[in-house]
């Protein structure tokens, strides 16, 4: 088996808070083949970020196990890179210093790591902003910086948690293209959390739909559309059907979520 395969087996997580226990994730199992692009979609608060934190080894005390290439993962793993949902650039580092961060942590000499960082800087199109601080960049640029920083870690498995959530539609589309290009270039196993059904169908080999709390897998939707997903493919009946099917699943869960929050449950 070649490197970069991920398996999640019966994973669950409960948070104990003063207000009570929240089951964020319950009995989730799936596997991702090397080089596969899988999107995870589910209503807000259903436990997607929690699932990523478990896979990335950032949470302890969860149920089940996570395997990379057949080996159980315990703690952060050098084959797994994460792009976080929130703004996560280091404000005291310039773009290039941010990108070089994982290399610096790994002990690479300064000259070497800056040279390498330049490559990833180009990959996300920020060459002209190498020596700017995050406060001098737009939200989209900061998100690309964070993405390049994770790519510089050269993970075999890339976890991206709504990297485009805070961006406008045009930037989103452009970045989506960029992600696809990088994915093809680096051939990384990629998991993407998104709220956007079209985006999920357009980018993925497979879409996993999650239920509202407790977060379980509701359905796995294989996307058997040809690549590249040109505007013809996106405009096709098959594409529309897939979007419709996922939307139907998601609407049930989203309305369950709305009712639960309106009913005054903590979220």
């Amino acid at each position: 088996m070649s490197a970069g395969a991920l398996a999640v087996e019966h994973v669950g997580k409960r948070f104990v808070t003063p207000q009570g226990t929240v089951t964020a994730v319950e009995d989730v199992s799936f596997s991702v083949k090397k080089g596969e692009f899988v999107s995870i979609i589910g209503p807000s608060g259903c436990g997607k970020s929690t699932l990523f934190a478990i896979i990335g080894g950032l949470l302890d005390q969860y149920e089940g196990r996570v395997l990379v290439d057949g080996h159980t993962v315990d703690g952060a793993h050098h084959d797994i890179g994460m792009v976080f949902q929130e703004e996560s650039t280091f404000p005291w580092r310039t773009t290039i210093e941010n990108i070089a961060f994982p290399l610096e942590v790994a002990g690479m000499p300064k000259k070497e790591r800056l040279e390498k960082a330049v490559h990833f800087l180009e990959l996300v199109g920020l060459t002209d902003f190498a020596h700017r601080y995050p406060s001098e960049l737009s939200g989209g640029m900061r998100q690309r910086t964070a993405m390049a920083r994770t790519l510089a870690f050269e993970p075999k498995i890339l976890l991206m948690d709504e990297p485009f959530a805070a961006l406008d539609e045009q930037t989103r589309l452009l970045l989506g293209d960029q992600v696809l290009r990088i994915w093809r270039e680096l051939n990384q196993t990629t998991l993407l959390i998104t709220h956007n059904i079209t985006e999920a169908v357009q980018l993925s080999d497979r879409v996993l739909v999650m239920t509202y709390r407790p977060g379980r897998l509701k359905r796995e939707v294989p996307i058997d559309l040809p690549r590249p997903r040109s505007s013809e493919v996106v405009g096709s009946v098959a594409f529309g059907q897939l979007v419709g099917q996922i939307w139907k699943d998601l609407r049930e869960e989203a309305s369950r979520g709305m009712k639960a929050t309106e009913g005054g449950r903590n979220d």
Partner: protein
Amino acid sequence: MKAWLHRPALWVLPFLVLGLAAQEAGVRLGFIPQVMIAAPTAILGKMPMLVAEEELLERIGLTFGLTFAAAALAILAGVPVGWALHRFRLLNRAYESWFVGLGAAPLILLYPLFLVMFGRNLFTITLMGFMVAVIPVVLKTREGMDGVRPVLIAVGKSFKLSGLRLFWKVQFPAAVPVIFTGIRLGLIVSLINIVALEFLVNIGGLGRLINDLAERFETAAMYGAIGFVVAISVTFFVLTERIELWLRPK
């Protein structure tokens, strides 16, 4: 003209000049008695005397050195303690209110006790300077560490950082602005307390000089010496700003 616009720090100069001119005029025209407030020109005129007869430079060096030592010790002790309060919530629950209370208390009033215990010497002065400086350093370090955004720590962990390396690469730089607020506060209260103590017990640097001059009714020279206390404070401020920028650009 342009240089002015780009350096807002200079905008205070007109007011300073105006104030000094008013002071000069007030004294010269007899509105202000000379024993209470001296004219700026008279203060300047006393400088050669201060340097030649009162060892001004040594006094400045001494007060600066004592404050520096007290603050350096406060940083060495305060940052780890602040970190511990952040890291171990139980410690924080146990001791936070004590630190806050001590920070608000006029510890300088304990000086007779300290004189009895440690003697009338520079060590006692430094010790009292340390005591008042360490409290804001502890509290602001804890606050700064508490305020580090969890996602930045998650980023560090995802790159396999942990323990001390996570602290130096992520938590510390993220908390530097708040920690330095504590360090600056510590330096200022330390300087105030050290000068006050020098004044009260008549040993050491500028505080002692101010006391001597006041007792001899050398009003103009005394204001000159007070001016140098302010100068020390400004120097520390600029120094900490530089170090902060070096540790954490932006």
